[in-house]
């Protein structure tokens, strides 16, 4: 059994502050969210997208936000390249993204391949006006593709052997982000 060590990257309080800041940055650029849609990338980007929507609606009184969830499993470029069959989660986008400003939301930006897949998957729902990327954690110096976030929560330096584990109260019991040494 390998010894795993983990340290706390962000506490619940810090996550909350960062989410509020990200919400404000979104608000600054999109103000009424009339022509803007938020899309959380499944499975883990969903939680970030839901939290941001909640903050925007409850604390900044945005009336209506189109929120969708996008599963990218069938668009990934590592099909048959790993040991395991890629398991899909649910896509739930009940609006067209045609001519909309899309904000893709994920928890951790690492190699950029998921985002690449998400950009391809997004095409199934129309041609957006523009696409931005929001991520809670940006793992610096680890990109395989030229993809950078427009909104970032916290930038971290982590080596390949390390993993960033984001946990949410509604799913895992508490809000906390760990850096795990595998």
């Amino acid at each position: 059994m390998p010894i795993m060590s983990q340290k706390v990257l962000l506490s619940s309080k810090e996550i909350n502050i960062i989410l509020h800041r990200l919400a404000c940055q979104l608000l600054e650029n999109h103000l009424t969210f009339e022509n803007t849609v938020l899309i959380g990338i499944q499975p883990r980007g969903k939680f970030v997208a839901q939290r941001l929507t909640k903050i925007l609606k409850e604390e900044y009184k945005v009336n209506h936000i189109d929120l969708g969830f996008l599963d990218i499993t069938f668009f990934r470029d590592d099909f048959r390249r790993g040991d395991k069959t890629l398991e899909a989660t649910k896509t739930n986008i009940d609006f067209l993204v045609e001519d909309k400003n899309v904000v893709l939301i994920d928890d951790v930006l690492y190699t950029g391949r998921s985002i690449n897949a998400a950009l391809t998957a997004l095409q199934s729902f129309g041609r957006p006006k523009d696409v931005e990327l929001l991520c809670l954690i940006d793992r610096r110096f680890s990109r395989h593709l030229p993809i950078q976030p427009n909104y970032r929560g916290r930038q971290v330096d982590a080596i390949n052997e390390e993993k960033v584990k984001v946990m949410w109260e509604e799913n895992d019991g508490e809000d906390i982000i760990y850096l795990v040494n595998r």
Partner: protein
Amino acid sequence: MSELSVKHLLGIKYLKESDIQLIFETADHFKEVINRSIKKVPSLRDITIANIFFENSTRTKLSFELAEKRLSADVLNFSASQSSVKKGETLIDTVNNILSMKVDMVVMRHPNPGAGIFLSKHVEASIVNAGDGAHEHPTQALLDSYSIREKLGDVAGKNVVIVGDILHSRVALSNIFALKLQGANVKVCGPKTLLPKYIDSLGVGVETNLRKALEWCDVANMLRIQNERLDISYFPTTREYTQQFGVNKKLLDSLDKEVVIMHPGPINRGVEITSDVADSKQSIILNQVENGVAIRMAVIYLLASKIK
């Protein structure tokens, strides 16, 4: 569990219950995909699939081809009637020639029972059985169960009757295996001449009175009389068969419940099922066809993910 326990889909007989659930869950996602405006995903862009049909087929062939294309696989179509098989080439030679063109998966329909199993022992590619004689037609049984699950919420505990030519039907056999595996109660109904002798060993009930069968069941799967397989006379006339084993509106209306009507196609309207029943709200025949594409996408996706 997130992968199939098998490398080929040769029959339901070789699957576990968890395999069926995995196929259904994967098909749920593909059903959402094929209802988008752009119905295609790029998962299998580096996979080539050969559809080899030694027997006629319309919907199964179209359904497989569509499923493969929706997954972005490259597709080769081969039908025996226009091929060197006519010149005397053996099955293994035919398939090995196709495989040497770097084909990863073979979808095969063949008139001989066990053809897929035989092939899987002699070639490298992943084999999907699209019907082997009177043996099995696994994707049909999967899509039938999937359609029942969609309509009634679950397959377990449901009463399903399969009506018609059980003796010659690969759909019947695969359905019996699939339904039993998922915990449904199964009866077969048809003229005694068209029930196989070994039917009791499959653990299904036998009913020769259609009305009694319908009173018992939640779902009736009406099979086609396969004239091409009836080498001798199994019943006096088609008219008599229809009177005894055909469903019509009057019969269904006289029951005190609504039975779900299924048919694997092609329908002989007016023989095993009347048009007003086939086109009624009770019938989920066209849902079966739609679900067929999602199920086949799921099967191909899951098998392809095991190709290294």
